[in-house]
């Protein structure tokens, strides 16, 4: 695994049909930590994550990892808000990213079984993935992202449609991954979840970063009035 992998965004903009979705955004993300991207709907959280992950192109500006692009690409994984399930079994879904790396069948099987145990789906290995419950699907999506042991993991509101129990299980897996050295960048608008998980916070509004600070500072003494209003549950746009 790559040990140091920081990210710099400089004057980044994303335009769609002449409409500004994101930007200008300039930020530095260190190679450690659990960053929560907070903000109301439409504030640009998903776009920012996709830009950082490299699946959304910048209209202008620059994005640079501290390692070469091909290494950075291989060292990242992404979990979507609505989990995408391959029309295969749970085991085959977990095996898929490893098959892309052309690993041996024995190694794939070993890692799939280990990962399934870790995410609590060891008894469901032969079940069709599209038939799992919402929480199980999200756990599988997370397992599939973690099975390649990414250095950086992006998550886009992974618990948005889940109940308390499933949310707790997902958060447990994320804490575990973070404790094992995975850099996590996660979008959410769930303040409780942000308080439980974040080491630092990016607060987005109207496609721009309004605040970037350690989580304790952000939740205790937000600098901007918008962040303060957001924390108090007011509607901010």
């Amino acid at each position, binding site marked *: 695994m790559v040990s140091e992998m920081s990210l710099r965004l400089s004057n980044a903009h994303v335009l769609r049909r002449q409409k500004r979705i994101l930007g200008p955004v300039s930020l530095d993300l260190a190679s450690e930590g659990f960053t929560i991207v907070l903000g109301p709907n439409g504030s640009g959280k998903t776009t920012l994550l996709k830009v950082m992950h*490299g699946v959304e192109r910048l209209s202008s500006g620059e994005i640079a990892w501290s390692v070469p692009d091909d290494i950075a690409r291989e060292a990242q*994984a992404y979990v979507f808000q609505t989990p995408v399930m391959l029309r295969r079994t749970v085991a085959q879904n977990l095996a898929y990213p490893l098959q892309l790396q052309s690993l041996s069948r024995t190694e794939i099987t070993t890692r799939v079984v280990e990962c399934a145990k870790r995410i609590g789906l060891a008894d469901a290995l032969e079940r069709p993935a599209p038939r799992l419950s919402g929480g199980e699907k999200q756990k599988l999506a997370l397992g599939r992202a973690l099975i390649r042991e990414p250095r950086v993991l992006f998550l886009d509101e992974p618990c948005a449609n889940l109940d308390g129990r499933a949310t707790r299980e997902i958060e447990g897996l994320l804490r575990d991954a973070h404790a094992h050295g995975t850099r996590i960048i996660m979008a959410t608008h769930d303040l409780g979840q942000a308080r439980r998980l974040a080491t630092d916070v990016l607060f987005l509004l109207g496609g721009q970063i309004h605040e970037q600070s350690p989580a304790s500072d952000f939740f205790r003494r937000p600098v901007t009035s918008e962040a303060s209003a957001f924390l108090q549950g007011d509607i901010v746009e």
Partner: protein
Amino acid sequence: MDEIWDGVVAAFRLIVTLDPDLVEITLRSLQVSLTALLIACSIALPLGTWLAIRRFRYRRAVIATLNALMGLPPVVVGLIVYLLLSRAGPFGVLGLLFTPAAMIIAQVIIITPLIASITHQAMRELWAEYHDLLISLHTSKGQRVKTLLWDGRRTLLTASLAGFGRGIGEVGAIMIVGGNIEHATRVLTTAIALETGKGDFALALGLGFILIGLALAINFAIHAVSRTEREGRW
């Protein structure tokens, strides 16, 4: 009604006695249509999938053309292939006219657009579902096509069977390029056309029933082998 009953009896008699001519033309029908299906699938499945995931300038025009080619008149295909393979044609030197190879070529031209078009429709939906994941995993174009073909294999089976159905039931083109020569290029459909022309409706109907039975048997066999209904749970 008598003629239909006579047809059933004729079909029964031909099957029970394992009539050598029937066996020969049945095997030739299968050989021509299955070979054409194999070739058409090897072109149409990747092509339809590629069209679903690739964006290029004239993509819509290509898809519209492909859809239009589904209704390609077999007789016209037969005529064009005939002209290409005839002595005076550009491929006349190959000596393929009035051989099963010519019939296979004609069938490939007829069924490839059909299979490619159905494949494109199915893969477009699957690609919409998989797009974000496969992009995020930084898969190559080849890996994307392979993944879509594998996960959409049951729909692709339907596309292939539609192609097979059109191929084995086709008569116009293979009559022109094959010539319906006994012990050489005669197949079930051309034999039916011949017997109808001779006024032997019972035999023609008998051959027709065998043709339908054959198409059904192949469909059932492929569904059974691919476990469509047992694993069709996605």
